[in-house]
């Protein structure tokens, strides 16, 4: 039982990371129907910005987090303006391939500059363990969960209470109608990318702090996993992405704890395929009829 609770704690930490990345996927997909393959790489760059901020500029945890958020938000907007805007009207396959090319560009461009080796993230948060009954709680677990929850609350506030949030919801529902109502869809899409990338940047710094190691290809797997999380929750549905992230994180740590750690990626993909076959709109998705 203690073992299960302990793994649950680890699973929630990992799930927070997935949830943060999945939010970006789901918002972007909701608004322009594009699987932004480069999202996982924005998370990687977020981790590197955090690394640079803490190692070379000696910033603390919170300032590094904020620097990373700003940088990734800018990067997200640049990627959107340079790469995705020209292909917004083209076919689905063209859009997906463009996304893959942006992802390759960021991964290997980054590798060219920072070299392929793994880097050790500095210890910005001194490790402290709390005991909760028989479960050991590291303060990093607590930080991850608190930061994630705060981010999600801010996001919910932006989406449901502000004018730009309303514009985002309108554009994702029907971008043409939104445009007719005087919403600048271009700006709204940029804001969506900025917000999503910002959350990915947060996830990058958190992962650096939690696992202490970063490398230029670290975004590949978590990127795909976060997409799986977004699919589980129903793509385009924000609470769904959070739920999917936590579900996937917990499942993965449980599979590892049961001794099948080599199969944990396979389990994630199996969940994805089952989900797509049984309920392609996700657990929280609305059923939308396809129009001919």
């Amino acid at each position, binding site marked *: 039982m203690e073992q299960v609770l302990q793994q649950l704690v680890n699973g929630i930490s990992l799930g927070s990371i997935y949830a943060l990345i999945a939010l970006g996927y789901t918002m972007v997909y909701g608004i322009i129907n594009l699987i932004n393959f480069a999202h996982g790489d924005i998370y990687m760059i977020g981790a590197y910005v955090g690394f640079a901020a803490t190692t070379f500029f000696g910033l603390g945890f919170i300032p590094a987090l904020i620097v990373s958020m700003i940088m990734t938000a800018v990067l997200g907007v640049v990627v959107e303006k340079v790469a995705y805007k020209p292909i917004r009207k083209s076919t689905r396959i063209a859009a997906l391939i463009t996304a893959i090319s942006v992802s390759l560009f960021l991964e290997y461009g980054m590798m060219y500059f920072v070299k392929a080796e793994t880097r050790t993230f500095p210890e910005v948060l001194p490790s402290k363990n709390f005991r909760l009954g028989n479960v050991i709680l590291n303060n990093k677990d607590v930080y991850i969960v608190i930061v994630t929850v705060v981010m999600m609350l801010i996001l919910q506030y932006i989406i449901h209470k502000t004018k730009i949030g309303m514009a985002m919801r309108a554009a994702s529902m029907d971008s043409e109608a939104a445009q007719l109502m005087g919403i600048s869809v271009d700006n709204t899409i940029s804001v969506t990318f900025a917000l999503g990338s910002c959350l990915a940047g947060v996830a990058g710094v958190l992962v650096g702090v939690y696992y202490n190691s970063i490398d230029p290809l670290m975004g590949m797997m978590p990127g795909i996993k976060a*997409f799986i999380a977004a699919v589980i929750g129903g793509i385009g549905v924000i609470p769904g992405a959070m739920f999917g992230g936590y579900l996937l994180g917990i499942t993965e740590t449980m599979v590892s704890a049961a001794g099948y750690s080599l199969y944990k990626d396979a389990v994630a993909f199996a969940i994805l395929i089952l989900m*797509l*076959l049984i309920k392609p709109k996700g657990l929280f998705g609305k059923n939308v009829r396809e129009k001919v």
Partner: protein
Amino acid sequence: MKVINRKTIMLAVVILAIYAVVEMMIGQGIIDSYVELNIVLIGINIILAVGLNLVTGFTGQFSLGHAAFMAVGAYVSAIVTAKFGQPFIVAITLSALAASLAGVIIGIPTLRLKGDYLAIATLGFGEIIRIMALNIDYIGGASGFNDIPKMTNWTWVYFMVVASIVVIKNFINSRGGRACISISQDETAAEAMGVNTTKYKILAFVIGAFFAGISGALYANYFYFIKPDSFGYMKSIDILVIVVFGGMGSIAGSVVGAVVLSLISLFLQSIPELRMVIYAVILFMIMVYRPQGLLGKEDFRFKFLKKRVV
């Protein structure tokens, strides 16, 4: 239309002449082993790209797991030749059949999905096959499969390339091929016209897998050594890049794409990171400025061979 006419005879002569010239150059040592290695690699990429083009270009089903079928073929061939000592022809046949079987197993559930979801599901299946290979000790697991006898040579590669092009080209010009093209244009309309879309989608997928299996066998029996990570998601993207670069729906495009991209990566070998960056830029430029690919829908026509038909 008769199968043996002036055009096909001329074509066969040209094909055999190319074979004989290169074979002679290899025998004379004009083509050294380094060049031969690259020719083999280009050949393997052509087979993969032509197969994927049938699935993605002609049938419009976006697959990101093509390398998995290559992995199945490679491992089956490695087992058959290294563990059971069977001749290469048996190994290639079994590889192709095993990969087709994998194609059926993966195709039946996933091909109900469309567009992005299909891409992600095939990516998932590809990764599952890779992870399974990583965890089976019989085939070497993560450390790879060693001491595979070298059986692939110019003859095998060349005739497999020719076979894949001929079979897929003829398939496209057949009733089944036209059904596949109609699916890529409008699946609903195709279905309304009485095309059994599921059947033809799976058929295209299986033919693609069949040739990917062959290319896997050629790969395994040329390089002595295979490991699961050679057949990951990046390999699938590599193949996709060839197809997109050459032109989706153009077999000639896939051949040109395989040759050009193999040469580009050869020249950039010393700077592997920049190689991928340049790849990415090429891919992006093509998607923005020429989404139909280098050759678009242009294809081999061989008009020059039958110009003087009486």
